[in-house]
């Protein structure tokens, strides 16, 4: 039982990077970015193939981030330069990525049995679950610090203002097209990084691992925001912490649902209904 919740936390940490990606695209830029489904799998595919061919996981990490960022940048360019609707741009790239991911993997599923991962490079705990938790915890902690810093820099302020008030930002000398492209690149870099982590936690990459993942990220972001509203905080650092917490909490809720006897077959349905609830409850209150 305890194991179930520990592995939920583990997945929550792994998906926290995805949630930060969604936070950037959806919350900062107001763009519902479906590229996520494809770039998550892309991260997993690149990770599985490179680990299988003997690469060190720590060298794979920046590469995965860059490929994800590349996918996001393409969505951004299609949206800002070819003036295609943001949602459609994401769907186009996601669709294309399905073939690309399959080509990278060569088959629909790559197991990582007995292969060295980022976790196996450490041995400060003999218990593998505890070891993974620690390593993931440290990675997400570094990510939290880095992204918080980035969003507080002058560049980060311009980024946040772009999604908030484009007219103003343009009048303040920001090229909003480039800014959106950079933002989508960043978001998908984090999403791919999540694919990298989850692949190694699960021990395999699968061509379908990204399906519906964007909803998972959105759910995490919104759960985080509901918690933050209770505490009335608005600082960006805390906001990001809420997103990470939301990701973990979401996984715990799902673990609880599974342990309560819900068939794993209906997991995506449960996720969808749950996210719908989270999204709509604040709106229902407002109309009263």
């Amino acid at each position, binding site marked *: 039982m305890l194991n179930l919740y520990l592995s939920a936390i583990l997945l929550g940490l792994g998906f926290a990077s995805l949630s930060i990606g969604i936070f950037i695209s959806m919350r900062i830029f107001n763009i519902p970015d479906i590229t996520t489904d494809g770039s998550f799998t892309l991260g997993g595919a690149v990770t599985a193939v490179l680990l299988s061919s003997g690469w060190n996981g720590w060298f794979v990490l920046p590469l995965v981030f860059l490929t994800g960022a590349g996918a996001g940048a393409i969505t951004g360019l299609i949206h800002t330069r070819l003036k295609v609707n943001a949602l459609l741009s994401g769907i186009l790239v996601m669709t294309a990525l399905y073939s690309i991911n399959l080509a990278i993997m060569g088959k629909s599923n790559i197991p990582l049995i007995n292969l060295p991962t980022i976790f196996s490079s450490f041995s400060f705990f003999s218990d593998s679950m505890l070891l993974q938790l620690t390593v993931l915890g440290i990675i997400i902690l570094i990510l939290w610090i880095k992204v918080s810093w980035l969003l507080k820099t002058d560049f980060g302020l311009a980024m946040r*203002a772009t999604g908030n008030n484009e007219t103003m930002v343009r*009048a303040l*000398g920001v090229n909003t097209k480039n800014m959106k492209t950079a933002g989508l690149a960043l978001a998908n870099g984090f999403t791919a990084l999540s694919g990298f982590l989850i692949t190694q936690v699960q021990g395999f990459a699968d061509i379908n691992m990204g399906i519906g993942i964007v909803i998972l990220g959105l759910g995490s972001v919104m759960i985080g925001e509901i918690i933050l509203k209770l505490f009335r905080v608005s600082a960006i650092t805390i906001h990001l912490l809420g997103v990470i917490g939301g990701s973990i909490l979401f996984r715990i809720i799902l673990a609880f649902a599974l342990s309560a006897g819900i068939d794993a077959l209906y997991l995506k349905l449960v996720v969808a209904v749950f996210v719908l609830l989270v999204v709509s409850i604040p709106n229902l209150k407002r109309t009263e």
Partner: protein
Amino acid sequence: MIEFIDIQKTYGAGTIHEIKALEPLNLKIMDGEFVVLIGSNGSGKSTLFNLLAGSTQPDKGQILINKTDISHLPEHQRCLYLSRIFQDPLSGTASELSILDNFRLAALRTRKKTLKIGTSQIFRKIIKDRIAGLNLGLESKIDQPVGTLSGGQRQALTLLMAVMDSSQILLMDEPTAALDPGTSRVIMEIAGRIIREEGLTAILITHQVKDVLRYGDRLIQMKEGKILRDLNKTQKQGIQVNEVLGWFGE
């Protein structure tokens, strides 16, 4: 100096909805001049603004600022020369960012936004002092999201933000149209003071006759894409409220 040379703009050219927003128009505005621009809706005032700020492109003609042709410069590069105050008091600030963060961006209007945290203690102090000058009591709220403030407070901040970085030209498109009379007066007083203190070249579009009489040292009336009246400071001084109201009926 701002120069419009043979500027022409038509919307929906060749269709039955064709609107000549600006006939070939020539206009020179000197450095430090405060121009009040009036005219009924559709007279071309806003088109003139949008052309200058770069949010629309002219069909023909040139726009020069200090003898440099800016006609084809994209909007975000024109901020080197000008800052803009919009009619919607919410559109000059980013609501989810704090007052401090908004001012940080404004302070970088003509510069690159780099990977550096610029909201230092020194910067905080400068901003607090400047905001205290507005006498609105906002200096204690600089960490609050701007979205928690009223429209009037936001417009006042927008005005101050406009002069945070070296700028020469201030464009104001009905900056008080959405505000109540009391707040409007406060905002216009702040605007007038900032323009005087910073020695800005300013253009104000307004429908408020009182503001037409009180502010500016040149008055231009537009009609159907043309300049109908162009009065200098001395000519402007003798004008009465009724006179201005009468012009709109012509």
